[in-house]
């Protein structure tokens, strides 16, 4: 058990470094879409919600899992959709206007 946790911790720490590297390159112009988009990614907890709600072997746990499914789906769908809505508004100066 302890060994397994340490293994997971290794993954966690390395992933944080990857996150720092990737996200430091996002320009300030896109910080709001970055937040809503990364927010949608944190909705990955939907996997856990589906697993606990899906087993159906303990009634109260299943109920909590179901609420978690709803919450996480709001987060995922709302997050990706609103990010897309924002990003489609970002446009360059049209070519003929540029010098």
């Amino acid at each position, binding site marked *: 058990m302890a060994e397994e946790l340490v293994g997971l911790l290794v993954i*966690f720490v390395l992933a944080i470094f990857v996150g720092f590297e990737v996200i430091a390159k996002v320009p300030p112009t896109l910080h709001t879409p970055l937040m809503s988009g990364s927010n949608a*990614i944190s909705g990955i907890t939907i996997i856990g919600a*589906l697993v606990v709600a899906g087993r159906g072997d303990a009634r109260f746990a299943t109920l909590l899992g179901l609420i978690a499914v709803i919450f996480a789906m709001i987060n995922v769908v709302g997050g990706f959709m*609103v990010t897309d809505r924002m990003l489609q508004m970002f446009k360059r100066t049209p070519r003929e206007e540029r010098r």
Partner: protein
Amino acid sequence: MEALAKLSYLLAAVLFIFGLKRLSSPATARAGNLLAALGMLIAIVATLAFEGILTWRMILLGMIIGSAVGATFARFVEMTAMPQMVALLNGFGGGASALVAGAELLRAAQLGMLRPLNVAVTIPLSVLIGSVTFSGSLVAFGKLQEIVTGRAVTYPLQKMVNGALLAAILAASVWLVVDPHHPVPFLMLVAGALLLGVLSVIPIGGADMPVVISLLNSYSGIAAAMTGFVISNEGLIISGALVGASGLILTNIMCRAMNRSLANVLFGAFGAGAPAGELGPAGAVGDRAVRQVTVEDAAMLLGYARQVVVVPGYGLAVAQAQHEVRELAHLIEQRGGEVKYAIHPVAGRMPGHMNVLLAEADVPYDKLLDMDQINPEFPRTDVSLVIGANDVVNPAARNTPESPLYGMPILDVDKSQNVIVLKRSMRPGFAGVENELFYDAKTSMLFGDAKESVKKLIQEVGAL
């Protein structure tokens, strides 16, 4: 089957990373977001296919409800309300993570499959961070939506109360380890964490919200990662860590842009004593007077300028004047002038908020310049048009060591040839500090609602 599920989660995580990488340019960002969404779809389908789901009907119903609510929010939210929206979504993410950890505890207890390290470390942490994110985000949402007062709420013995609460949460966690089958310690843990979330956001003032939202964003990621530890799922851990890192970077950028430490933002109760009453246009402190300008004269300056830099602040968003500003810029450009926009990192109520508002008003993103890009340009700028911004253009941040703003990076508006400030009144900005810029000989003030003032400027510039 489990191997297939894990491989799919890995694929999803890889797609998230590629998606985030594409956010490094507005040209590729939309494709990046779609890539990340594809990753999520793969993860969900893999879970449904490989994880032995039994309660199909219920789960699909839950997914449909959640998707419908999320899609409705995303479709109808106003761009000015984006900070509230992100706060709310953060809250749901954190809440979901806490619920999963709680459900896992219940299930393991009922089936006699409790694992000691899980009960002692990962479940309490996951429930704690998830619940704090949930309730903290709801308070932040309330403040931004102005359901709760935007002021910093302080009360006596604040730190003692928070300390006692932390001690109670710790005690509940220890009790949980001793007797994991008892419902009281778990409920105590949840209640304590929810209260902690409320109490830690309520003393933070409205204009510090960019920091709070960034931090809660980070928490929601860490909560997902902690849940990954609870259910031993690498996909959750990697994705959660990415989001946690993202939120931390933004938190750091926001704090630096305000020249304040995170501790100062969280515990400093900045903005608790902000003046309530408005000072009239003539309410300048002491015997110094500001120079007012007529719309005609301001239009004249703008109409014949070679380079105009617009400096938007939160006042522009409040007045919903972004479309009018774009129209004015268009007129100036038609007359041969160049218009650029100077965006301070904390302009707006969340990182990058002003850029989204201007993009919505069809301002091309290559004209939105951040502080480091635009500051060298001010000396060759004919007119800087400051709209609803205050503290971020206060030269006291450079010149006056006694000022509370001293050291904060600002836009060097005072170095341009002329400055026109559109402002409602002489009321000081969020920091409650008098702005030297308004008394500068190069500065003229145009008082009134930003939207109305810009509309008048459009008319006058158009008539030149």
